[in-house]
């Protein structure tokens, strides 16, 4: 094989490899799962009315790890993850961790009823007009954002969260200094 043919072959192989690599970047991920551009950035601030208590302002929770869970009483997957969130709240509330439920596209009556009957122990706030949901780029419920003590979003979970994974994340954050 002449060197010219070898160069041509190498060029063709390189071009095909480049196209395959480009396709692999797209084929390797689920197109229905979007990575939030907010991860690594400051969590958008909000002040929301609590279902049973004073309003909650995120900025005032600075210095604590905050688990923001968007949910709704009509959402079945939210019911699945709710025990894990309760467990997390019970386990870490004395360690500087806040679990906060943000009620999304719901009625106060239905949300309050759910909180009472299903024994939700962590604070729950109402997102009237979905302003906070839009600021967090919400695409549905449940979605969970973990905010570190510096107020930055470090984790975004689409779908139900698990108690073990959440505890692991929180433990690693409590054991390290935030950037």
């Amino acid at each position, binding site marked *: 094989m002449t060197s010219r043919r070898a160069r041509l072959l190498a060029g063709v192989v390189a*071009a095909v490899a480049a*196209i395959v690599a*480009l396709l692999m*970047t*797209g084929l390797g991920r689920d197109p229905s799962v*979007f*990575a*939030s*551009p*907010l991860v690594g950035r400051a969590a*958008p601030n909000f002040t929301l009315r609590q279902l049973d208590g004073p309003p909650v302002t995120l900025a005032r929770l600075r210095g604590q790890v905050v688990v923001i869970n968007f949910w709704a009483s009509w959402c079945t997957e939210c019911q699945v993850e709710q025990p894990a969130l309760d467990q997390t709240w019970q386990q870490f509330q004395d360690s500087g961790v806040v679990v906060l439920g943000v009620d999304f*596209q719901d009625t106060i009556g239905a949300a309050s009823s759910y909180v009472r009957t299903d024994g939700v122990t962590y604070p729950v706030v109402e997102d009237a*007009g*979905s*302003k906070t*949901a*839009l*600021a*967090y*780029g*919400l*695409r*549905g419920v449940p979605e969970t954002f973990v905010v570190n003590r510096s107020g930055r979003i470090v984790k975004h979970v689409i779908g139900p969260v698990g108690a073990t994974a959440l505890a692991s994340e929180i433990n690693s954050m409590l054991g390290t200094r935030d950037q």
Partner: protein
Amino acid sequence: MNAAGTLRRARASLPGLLVLAALAAGLATLAVVAVSGHPPPSQAQQVQQIAAGLHCPICKDLSVADSPAPLAQQMRQEIAQKLRAGESPAQIRAGFVAAYGDSVLMSPPRQGVTGAVYYLPVLVLAAGLITAFLLLRRWLRTPQADPPGAGAPQLSASQRRAVARAVARLHEEEPG
């Protein structure tokens, strides 16, 4: 100068005056259009324009303007509120991109991998056309001569002797 002469001169210059008047009227109309321009869009039209450029985050393939989903309705309300608060359409779009990423735009910017999707086929097509052109030109210029080494094969002395013997044998075997 009598009255008849004045009237004749006036009649003679009438077409020129009419042309001048028409030109003046045309210029005046152009000036009015240039100054006034298009009327500014109403706020509802602005909301519609911005919403049409945003992808409904929970829909398969609908814009925020076209989707009946509650989240799309809330996005339209948010756009209206931000317009009333004095934000520009670009600022509003940037706000949604900050929360949702480029995927919220109906026409994502042509950068990074998205840009490659736009430009790579064009580049590959251009490279193919250039290659085809170069090959075609070379084929047309090159005379259709036998490649080097073609033609009578180079035989060794023993091979030539073997061929001569084979030919002689053939001649002997030929009838007549």
